[in-house]
């Protein structure tokens, strides 16, 4: 016999199902009267410091279909690398946004500020990135990934440098498509499967 551990085990995940929008963005789902507005409508408020950017993309399944029922959340630092709630953080950067694939086109859009660099626990600088979380029917445990930017210096980023297959690194890069505009598609499977994180 040994002593018993008194730690608990995390509650098991389950899929958000096809109606995840009812619970998380009810106004989007057509239940307009429940809350004044959906949670996480804006990552930033007007006047946020830094470069304002718009990122657009699709979530694509293993058949190549950009599915219409994905729910996404993003979390990020402000332009100086501080998170909402930390001392000195830009009060106009919420850092959190919740958005969905469009019902007709499958496209999602995130309007935000380009984040600054954030250190790891051991003091190394991470390249600017936005954390992304994806829930949908058929996804049994929600997926974490990150949006990096192809026009930033990503050479020292500790997470990117852990990717053995260097040909997969571009799956985490938002591609610049115009002034302040980026494209970031998420592939759940296939040759260009996005790098998902266990972090």
């Amino acid at each position, binding site marked *: 016999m040994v002593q018993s551990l*008194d*730690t*608990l*085990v*995390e*509650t*098991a995940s*389950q*899929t*958000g*199902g*096809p*109606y*995840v*929008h*009812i*619970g*998380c963005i*009810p106004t989007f789902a*057509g*239940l307009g009267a*429940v*809350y004044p507005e959906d*949670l996480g409508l804006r990552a930033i408020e007007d006047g946020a410091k830094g470069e304002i950017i718009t990122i657009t993309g699709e979530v694509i*399944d*293993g058949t190549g*279909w950009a*599915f219409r029922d994905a729910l996404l*959340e993003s*979390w990020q*630092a402000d332009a100086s690398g501080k998170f909402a709630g930390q001392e000195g953080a830009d009060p106009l950067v919420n*850092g959190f946004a919740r958005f969905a694939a469009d019902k007709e086109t499958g496209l999602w859009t995130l309007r935000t500020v380009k984040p600054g660099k*954030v*250190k790891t*626990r051991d*003091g190394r600088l*991470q390249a600017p990135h936005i*954390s992304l*979380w994806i*829930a*949908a029917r*058929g*996804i*049994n*445990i*929600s*997926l*974490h990934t990150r949006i990096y930017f192809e026009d930033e210096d990503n050479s020292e980023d*500790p*997470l990117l440098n*852990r*990717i053995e297959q260097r040909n997969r690194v571009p799956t985490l890069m938002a591609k610049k498509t115009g002034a302040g505009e980026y494209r970031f598609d998420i592939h*759940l499977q296939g040759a260009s*499967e*996005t*790098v*998902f*994180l*266990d*972090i």
Partner: protein
Amino acid sequence: MSDLGPLVPRRRDMHPVPFDPDYKTSVTRSPRWPLLSMESTPSEETGPRFGHSLIGPLDNNLILNWSKDGTPAIGERILMHGRVMDEFGRPVPHTLVEIWQANAGGRYRHVKDTYFAPLDPNFGGCGRALTDEQGRYQFLTIRPGAYPWPNRANDWRPMHIHISVFGHSFGQRLITQMYFEGDPLIDRCPIAATIKERSQLDRLVAPLDMAMSRPLDFLAYKFDIVLRGRRQTMFENKLEGM
């Protein structure tokens, strides 16, 4: 802000498998290649906080929060309650819990749900609450009905309530489902069966809680939720400036 330490790594064997042929949609929506593992960083250790000003007085009362004239939703009245804590048993206070569910007939208020069971004009099907100082939350709602869904030829979802929890860091984010004690459909459900560790599925089944039920009003079901913890040892890399 003090450094609470890195997140405890997720035990993936205690979670559902991402790919399960019996749950058809998971076949094309599950990553095929291994996840990239790394110790958490501030990007995962911080997260959005929501204040009490967000929450309306009826947000945690699904029996009344869609009613136009105070007529209660149709169904078996229940109290869903529990605690949100971390893997070390610490309460997770002031965190947002959101729920959504079908009505008593098993129908969601959603354009894509075309099941025969009628909509209840007084039931919307979503609610939210912030946990209190001890991590406790409560919802008053009706017991949702089971419903059929297109998967294998004759699959039915057991009665369930969907739950989304934030915790205090983005890496703790969790979506799960609460089932009801005694429902024979749980063991026939391919979504429940994506969890291969039986004790973990059992923990999603809420017991009837007569102590918290209100005589002549509602039955109660208890559903505790455990989120990832933060490891604190004397030998960690501490975050600078914290």
